[in-house]
Every structure is written in structure tokens, then in C-alpha cells.
């Protein structure tokens, strides 16, 4: 037997992989039972998933191990779903088709569409960059930290703002809020220097 296979990293990684697979399999079994109890499986499943994260963290360190565990969770779930997919007959179509939400039907026109696009792409971007730069300039952190954290917040805030403006039917409300946020952000970022 090859002794290298018994090194701690390999053992922990193998244990983590098994725990992740078992955890996701238990969660699926609990999911199959739906309303018929199975809390034990739910708890055991999540505990096994957490155990896999811990094993990966011990094997490769918390930083790399967590990244590996997150990737493994996705791939194991994909594998479990792919191996247990359900083939449905055509006669069940009608029921399923009748039971789906449809997007809200909204009256729209070109002017409204352009207005929405300007809000979601331009104004949400202006506002999020304003907030990000305000944090990069004024947050009580070392310069590099506040610059990176401020920068990282820009796409997150922009993405959130984009999702919100596109789902909110009231353009005026979104415009006022985004303009206010922009004013606050750029005010914090630029005013102290302008006034000094």
C-alpha cells in the first residue's frame, strides 16, 4: 500500500469530500420527504456539510479550504441533482405550466424603457461609485483597506441598485433616492477637500 495516500491532507480532504457528499445526499433525502418530518436528516445533513468545511479548512488552511469547500458544495449538489433527475411524461405538462409565476405585465414605451436604463445603468452606477469613493476617502481604516473595500462595494451596490430600479415601477421614487444617495456619497468624498 502506498503510504503517501495516508498523509493528513489527503485523509482530511477525503473525509471532507465524503462528508460533503453524505450531507448533500441527506439534505436531498429530507427534501424528498417534504412535509413528512425528517428534521433529523436536515440537521445531520447541514452538520455534515459544516463538517466538510472544517475538514477542508484543516487540510488546506481556512482561506484556501473554505474556497475549496464552497466549490465542492456546488459540484456535489450538481452531481446529486444530475444523478437523480426525474423524467416526466407529457401528460403532466398542463399542471406544471399552470403553476408558474409570470413576470408582472407592465405598460411600457420607449421613453420609459430609456428612463429605466438610465436609472439602472447610469444613475445607479454614479450613486454606487459615489458611496464607494466616499468609503475609500473617509472610512476610519488604513488607506489601502478603505480603497479596496470601497472599490469592492461599488459593483455590489451597483448590482443591487440595478435590480431594485428595474423591479420598482415608480421611476420618480427611484430617481429621487439615487440622486440623494449620489449627493451624500460625493459630498462625503469631495466636500472636506473642497472646504479645506
Amino acid at each position, binding site marked *: 500500500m502506498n503510504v503517501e495516500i495516508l498523509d493528513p491532507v489527503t485523509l482530511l480532504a477525503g473525509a471532507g469530500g465524503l462528508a460533503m457528499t453524505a450531507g448533500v445526499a441527506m439534505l436531498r433525502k429530507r427534501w424528498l420527504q417534504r412535509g413528512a418530518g425528517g428534521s433529523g436528516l436536515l440537521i445531520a445533513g447541514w452538520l455534515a456539510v459544516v463538517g466538510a468545511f472544517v475538514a477542508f479548512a484543516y487540510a488546506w488552511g481556512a482561506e484556501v479550504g473554505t474556497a475549496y469547500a464552497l466549490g465542492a458544495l456546488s459540484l456535489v449538489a450538481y452531481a446529486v441533482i444530475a444523478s437523480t433527475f426525474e423524467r416526466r411524461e407529457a401528460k403532466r405538462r398542463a399542471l406544471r405550466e399552470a403553476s408558474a409565476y409570470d413576470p408582472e*405585465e407592465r405598460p411600457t414605451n420607449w421613453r420609459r424603457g430609456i428612463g429605466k436604463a438610465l436609472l439602472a445603468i447610469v444613475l445607479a452606477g454614479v450613486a454606487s461609485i459615489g458611496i464607494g*469613493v466616499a468609503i475609500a476617502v473617509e472610512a476610519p481604516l488604513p488607506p489601502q483597506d478603505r*480603497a479596496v473595500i470601497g472599490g469592492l462595494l461599488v459593483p455590489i451596490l451597483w448590482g443591487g441598485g440595478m*435590480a431594485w*430600479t428595474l423591479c420598482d415601477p415608480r421611476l420618480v421614487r427611484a430617481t429621487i433616492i439615487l440622486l440623494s444617495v449620489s449627493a451624500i456619497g460625493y459630498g462625503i468624498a469631495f466636500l472636506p477637500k473642497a472646504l479645506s
Partner: protein
Amino acid sequence: MQDVARKPPRKAPFLSPQFVRAMLAGHSALGIAFAALIYIVCLTGTLTVFMHELKRWEQPDAPVVEGSLSADVATKAVEEAYRKALALNAAHDIFVMGPTSTQQRLLANFHDHGTGIEGHWIGDGTGNLVVEQHAPWAEFITDLHIRLHLPHTWGLFLVGLTGVALLSSLVSGLLSHPRLFKDAFALRWGGSRRLQEADLHNRLGVWGLPFHVVVSTTGALLGLSTLIVGVLALAAYEGDSERAFASILGPMPTKDETAAPLPDVAAMIRDVQAKHGDAEFVSVFIQHIGKAGQVVNLGMKTPGHLAMSNAYYFDGNGKSLGDGGLETGSIGQQILGALQPLHFGWFGGLPVKIAYGLLGLALTIVTQTGITIWLARRRDAGRAAPHWEKVWAAVTWGQPLAFVVAALAIFAGGGSYAVPAYLATTVVSLLAAPVTPDAAVMSRVLRLLAGLLGLSAVIVHGFVWSGRISDPAALWVSGVMAVIALALLASALRPNRARLEALSRGG
């Protein structure tokens, strides 16, 4: 996420139906607006994960170097690169990268900002630079992912905006999915195409969410960094973007152009290793080399960190200017160090790359099925959009076809033919869409062509490099490309089940 199944609720749902429908409307609008861009960026991103392997495929006779470089070999590579740069009057900035778990070559680049002259070389295990790097297809794919072959700043910005749109779609998709847990493992195949694709879209989207969020956020930040730093410079650095970047990226060279000896890179490596015994050489970047204002950015990696390396800064005399803290520094420094490896999956060798490839493919499918669901919903509602169905088929399958046409164009005429061949194939695919009978035919023809030409690319590569392939990675890449091409061919030649069912029903 779309088309969630609905049953009469027993208690008030966490998300009201009105909210879900409004979110779905926003999700659809965003998806429709950015679908093609997100699809191209995701598909090319999946390929870019394997950029180093693609480069090895394109130059399978170049040396492969295993293990980290010794201080002496790294120094020799720097000296060789400097000599080659001097010969071209381009000795300004020099970058040398050793093999890591991510890539197995010794690479040396030089670049002169003033003249634009640059050189890219591959070295052997002794530090000799033996062959110029030539990988136009990998560079074509990577540039398409990073800047869509647009002018640099505009391309980066557009890709960054695409990342924001993807992130926004993930947020709105999650919030329009009230049966997140109830449908957690449901993949119901058969029946309605729309709901089958919705299951696929939702399962791939939800279970891959950590990956999707990470790559879209890091990608958006990398793309938008010039814009963000530009505004930061206006706010805090009198509009000086270089100073703003320096505050984030560490010491920059001074403008003192007085001649100076080359820095002693080997001594710097040993200095770092004296303090961190397990640190291994990854790269060295010397700005304004051979000048009094030169600064050395030495990349050294210790195990257990996501960052490709930590940056150790020295002046030309070997005096330490501190380190970047990318491995064990503050939270901002560690985030900075992890951005690129987390985005491209360049932190754990081939297994992580394969995982990223699969997850990237999943994200590409999520994007593709999003529009398919929207089109199917319109068809179900009696508002079919056959032209858009054909156009989406042209986008979906025209891109893989355009990539392999670009590869064949490079074989035929050289690297400069890649972009025109790609653009021509994309345009012809889109123009052909209206004249094809339906989207299924469009899809089949494009898959058939992509499969045939993909196999041709593998065969041509075999002929071109016959008897000269020394790098086994090239054979693996050819094998994977052949399998993908055969899968495309098989999917194109498979009988159309839906059509057969319709015929058997007398339709």
C-alpha cells in the same frame, strides 16, 4: 431565476407574489438587455481559466519547467530578459514568472511604454530564454473575455458593467425564487420545455451561487477599477490616477533615469526566504530597470493562501520597501491578493481549474437558458418571437463556431486573422438567422459546423506539430477539444425528439 412552481400557500409566503412578479419583470428586462454580452463573457471566461493550457497547446515544443525556480535561475532569467530588451532598445519594465501550480513555464516579458516595443519569451529550467512566446488563439480568447477586443479602457469598462449586470441578475433571480428550498433538488426533465429549462436554470443558478457571486463581483471590480480609481484620484489625489493606484498597489518607481546596476534579485529572494522559510519564488517585476529610480516587486508564495504570491518591494540597491501584505496583511490587502486567483481559479492547480471550468460552464448555461425560458414563455402565451429564437440560437452556437474558425484562421494566416475571422463568423451567423426555417435548424447547423471545424482544428494542429510535440498538455487539450467537438456533432445529428413526437401524434 424564473418560472417557479406555485401551489396554494398554507401560510403567508416570505416573498409576496406581487414582489416576485415585479422582481421577475426586472430580472427578465436585465437578462434580455445584457444576455449576449453576459453569455460571451461567461463562455470566454470558462475558456480563460485554461489560458495557460491553451498556450501550451499552441506551442507544444516549448520547455515545461516543474517546481519553483531557484534564486540563481530566476536571476539568470532576469539578466537574459534584460539583454534581449536592450538589444531592442526596450529595457524599461521586465517581468519574469516562474512555474507554479497554475502554470508550468518560465516566462519573461519586457515592455517599453515609450516605444510600445515588447517581447515575450519562454525559458528552460536553467534560466535561458529559448523561444519567443506565440499563442495568438489563447490571447484572442483572453482578450475577448477581458475587453471584448475593444479599446482597452472602454473594453474593460463594458466587461465590468457586464459583471455588474450579472451580479444584479443573481440578486433579482434569487429574490424572484420563493421556492428556493422547496425546489432545491428538483430537476424535472420532459414535459414542457419552458419548465424543464427553468428547473435547469434555477438549480444551476442556486447551487452554484457562491461561485457565480464571486466571479461576477471580482470581474466587475477588475473591469471597473480604472473608473473607480479615476474618481478616487479626483477626490483624494488631485486627479493623479498613478498616485491613487500607488496607494493601493504599493511603491512605484521614481522618475530618476540615471543609469544604475541591475538589482540583485537572488539576494532579494534569499532575504525573503530567510524570513519566511517556506516562501517560493513566483515572479519578479522590475520597473525602470537599470535606472536609479527602479523598483523591484518580488512575488513570493507561502502555502495556505489564495493570493498568487505576496509582493515584496525593494529599491535598486536591495533595500526593502516593505511588502504588500497580500497573504497575511490587512483585510483589504488580502482581498486585493485574492481578486485575480478567485476570479480565474488560479490558486489550486488543475483540479481547481477543472472545477472552475464546470462551474463556469454552469453559469454560461444559466445565462443561455434564461433567454430560452423568456422565449418559451412568449411562445406559450401565444406571442412567439421566432426571429429572436433564431437570433438567440445564432448567438449561443455561433460563438463556439466563431472561436474554432478563429483558431483555423490563425493556422492558415497568423494571429492577425483571429479577430476578423471571429467577427465575420459572428456576423454571418446572425445574418443567417432570419433565413433559416426555425431556431432548431439554426442551432443544429451551427453545432454541426462547430463540431466539424473543431475536429478540423485538432487535426490541423496534429499535422502542424507532427513529431515536434514535447509537452503532454498539448495532447490533453487536443483530446478534450476532440471530445467537445464530437459531443457537438452528436447533439447536432441526434434525432429531434420533439419533432418525432409531433409526427407520431400526427402533428
